[in-house]
């Protein structure tokens, strides 16, 4: 018996990540300091860049590979590209950070690449088995990565919490997938869709239960309320670079798989899931925005805002149209640059002040650090959806999709959520421009400042590093550029949307 035919070219973006992971792990074993501290991050960066390049090379490809286990099309390629970009930025943010040094450089970057490979596989998966395998490949390295600041208790707590909650999510998903298989007798997305299309399965309890459990499992990963409770704690505890990676790349992967699973495999059951998902989106928007008010840690604010943003994007999934997918794909791209800009500033200020990630750490930087103040401001305004930034165009597209899909009320929910979100985004902006820099010693700072106080000797004030500022400024410029000239990226998103030909 011979194995299935493998289209190596189509698989290449995924291979670049997986191979990069192994190479980085091996190079990390070398003795010289230079190899571990500079060569390893460089190789990791190159692997991500190579993957991005291969995505561009394969762009027009449209094929099912490895006996239908994976699907390579504009949607999966586009999201793989996003993951690769997020990976490159994360490498830059991690380069001179504490986490790789404490946990060993090789392992840290290898795990990052492995997780990214899992994400790439997840967005390509079009079979229940490959879906679950990819899901676990994504998750397990991330559990470890969250705990890589070994000498900081909150980091360990974050890893453990993510492991426990994530495992519950995975188990739920697996159960759900098994039930879907039981109901339809197929693991391939296309066959599931065919089986459902026959119409004999309307209201089948086995199918509905499977559907519900798998949505719950995926919702855990995308931090959709009410399955989001882990998000703030895990985001806050994890090393900031990893938080940035989780917030952007994981979200892209999770939404990508939700889109493919629902809009390809389960599209005949759309009347069953779309109202449920609409309610989930609404709850998520409300919970995320309300939760973010009153937080004092920027990472927690971003975590809650990430929950809310997941809700906005879910609105694009609800409508199950090419317009919706286009809007989600575009929003994921702009969400990536806006969020990374903010996280880069958090990294920089945490290094410079030793105040951790509390709002205090950015107070008054408008007067002293314009290269950090502007990116943070633009990022916050972008996330709030102010015109002139990419966030506005993203929200516009999402509202456009929901109104076109007869979910006009969901569009109103999105804008009301955005209105609430101003209360916390502008609090950060106000701290940047309208407050004095804190003069208090770091140990007196409240909230997560205490965290920094525990181990001051280690993370005392030091320069932020040019690469962190560079990431912040680059992402801020991209936020503005995508807000003024969204055309090119919008075209790519439109390609991604039209990749799923089963939709109107």
């Amino acid at each position, binding site marked *: 018996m011979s194995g299935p035919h493998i289209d190596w070219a189509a698989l290449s973006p995924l291979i670049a990540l997986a191979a990069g992971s192994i190479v980085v792990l091996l190079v990390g074993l070398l003795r010289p300091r230079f190899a571990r501290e500079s060569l390893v991050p460089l190789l990791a960066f190159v692997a991500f860049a190579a993957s991005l390049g291969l995505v561009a090379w394969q762009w027009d490809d449209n094929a099912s590979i490895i006996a239908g286990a994976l699907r390579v099309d504009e949607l999966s390629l586009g999201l793989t590209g996003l993951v690769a970009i997020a990976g490159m930025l994360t490498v830059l943010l991690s380069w001179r950070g504490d986490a790789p040094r404490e946990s060993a450089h090789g392992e840290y970057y290898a795990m990052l690449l492995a997780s990214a490979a899992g994400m790439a596989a997840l967005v390509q998966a079009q079979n229940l088995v490959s879906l679950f395998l990819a899901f676990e490949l994504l998750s397990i390295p991330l559990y470890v990565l969250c705990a890589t600041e070994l000498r900081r208790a909150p980091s360990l707590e974050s890893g453990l919490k993510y492991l426990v909650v994530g495992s519950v999510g995975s188990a739920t998903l697996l159960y759900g997938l098994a039930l879907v298989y039981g109901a339809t007798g197929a693991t391939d997305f296309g066959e599931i869709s065919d089986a459902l299309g026959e119409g004999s399965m309307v209201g089948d309890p086995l199918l509905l239960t499977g559907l519900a459990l798998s949505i719950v499992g995926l919702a855990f990963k995308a931090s959709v309320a009410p399955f989001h409770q882990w998000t703030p704690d895990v985001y806050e505890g994890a090393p900031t670079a990893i938080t940035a990676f989780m917030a952007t790349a994981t979200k892209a992967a999770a939404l990508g798989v939700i889109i493919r699973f629902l809009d390809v495999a389960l599209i005949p059951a759309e009347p069953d899931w779309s109202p449920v998902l609409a309610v989930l989106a609404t709850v998520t928007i409300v919970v995320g925005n309300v939760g973010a008010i009153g937080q004092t840690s920027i990472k927690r604010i971003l975590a809650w805002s990430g929950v809310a943003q997941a809700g906005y994007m879910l609105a694009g999934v609800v409508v199950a149209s090419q317009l919706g997918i286009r809007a989600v794909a575009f929003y994921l791209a702009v969400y990536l640059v806006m969020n990374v800009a903010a996280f880069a500033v958090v990294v920089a200020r945490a290094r410079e002040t030793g105040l951790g990630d509390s709002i205090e750490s950015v107070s008054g930087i408008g007067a002293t650090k314009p290269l950090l103040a502007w990116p943070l401001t633009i990022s916050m305004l972008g996330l709030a959806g*102010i015109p002139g930034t990419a966030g506005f165009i993203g929200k516009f597209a999402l509202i456009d999709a929901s109104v076109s899909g007869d979910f006009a009320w969901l569009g109103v929910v999105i804008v*009301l959520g955005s209105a609430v979100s*101003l209360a916390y985004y502008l609090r950060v902006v*106000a701290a940047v421009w309208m407050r004095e820099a804190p003069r208090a010693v770091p140990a007196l700072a409240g909230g997560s400042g205490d965290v920094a106080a525990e181990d001051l000797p280690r993370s005392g004030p030091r320069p932020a590093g040019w690469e962190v500022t560079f990431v912040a400024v680059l992402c801020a410029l991209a936020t503005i550029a995508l807000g003024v000239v969204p055309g090119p990226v919008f075209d790519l998103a439109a390609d991604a949307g039209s990749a799923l030909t089963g939709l109107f």
Partner: protein
Amino acid sequence: MLSILIWLPLAVALLAALLPRALAPRFAALGTLGALGLAIYLIADYSAGSGMQHAVDEIWISELGMHYKLGIDGLNLFLVGLTTLAFAAAAVWASFREWDRPRLFYFHLLLGETAVLGAFLTQDLALFVVFFDLMLIPFYFLTGQWGGENRVPATMKMVIYTFVGSLLMLAGAVATGVLAAGDGQTLSFAFSDLQERTLGEGTQQWIFLLFAAAFLVKMPAFPLHGWMPDAYKAMPIEVVAVFSAVLSKVAAYGFLRIVLPIFPDASAHFQDLMLVIGLASILYGSVMAFTTTHARLIVGYSSVAQLGFITLGVFALDPQGAQGAVLQMVNHGLVTVPLFLIIGLLAVRSGGSEDIRDMGGIAFRAPVLASLFLIVALATLAMPGSGNFVGEFMILLGVFETKTVFACIGFTGVALAAVYMLRAFIRMMHNRVGPKVESREVSLRAGLVLVPLVAAILLFAVYPQLALERQEASVVTVVETAQEVAR
């Protein structure tokens, strides 16, 4: 041409950011004067009654149907003039003072000008929303960074209040575009397309409410004015002058440009509601302006009342009322800027207090300042012979023809305006000399800003036809449909 006008302030602002600190203020002020010159050229060049002029139409984002579409007609011609005049006055006035971080200050001020001009000139609903939302951001920073007491809470309150409205309008705008595009039609947000593609009446009604929320908050109209007192008190005086003179007009303009032509059925349906809001604003604003002792709030509440009048004029759904409303927008802007600037001067003379109880007797050694103030005050209370009188008269005439009862109540507003404005003038300029008051004549450079503004007021007083003739055709077009429905 119009693109140059819109982007000139922003370009100047960016250049000014690169200049040395000492030069930036003058350069920024020059830039606003340049924009004013362009606007004057546009007014001189305008030929009445020939539709959109200097039109620009480029595709911005084709997938979303967004166009970069600009045009000028009788409706926005003088509002553009007013905007450039107000910003030029504010920028020149501001350049007399030392600012902390001046380049940033002028950057925000000029970004504000770009956004306001964009909102007035755009002929595409999506682009309008972009500029409408954008124009708040610089004022958020201007208030929050350079404002007075309690500036941060005040600016937050202002932004959240107005953004709830703006975002609702965003949803309404998208819904309008999407729902109006029928089968096979491409998505478009151009005003001209939306006017042709009529929406169902039920759809019009819920979208109307979203737009009304945005505009009424921005005006501000009673009972959505909650953000106004704190924000006005906290803003630097130059900023509050342009904010009150110009930004509120964008909202009133939005009713005329967008709501009436695109949602005619809903406008007729909600006519009474809007008239009641207008009347309530007039009465509430007048009473508050009469009772408060804070000089800025007197002007602020009088703006509430004036915008109540403008709302009346717009929702009279009658060409005459609308004509009056447009004229009144310009007039009100013209008086608000000098009023606030004069309050700034008086505050300097009364030991820094803006409370009218601490002022008094300032006219004593300052006859020129007193005369300038008197002219402005008389224009504000719509003294016969002033342009404001013509505006209010036409508004009330328009309302009288359609809704007589509302007009009768509206007339009391005219009388109340006389009461609060004269009270303010007398308490500030005459009466017993305040404890810390030091009467002093207006300085030459301050005079150079005030005199042109007063001259503009006088120009519209003696020759309101200048505006009326040019705007007539455009105003009739926007009111037409709604007027037919209402009959």
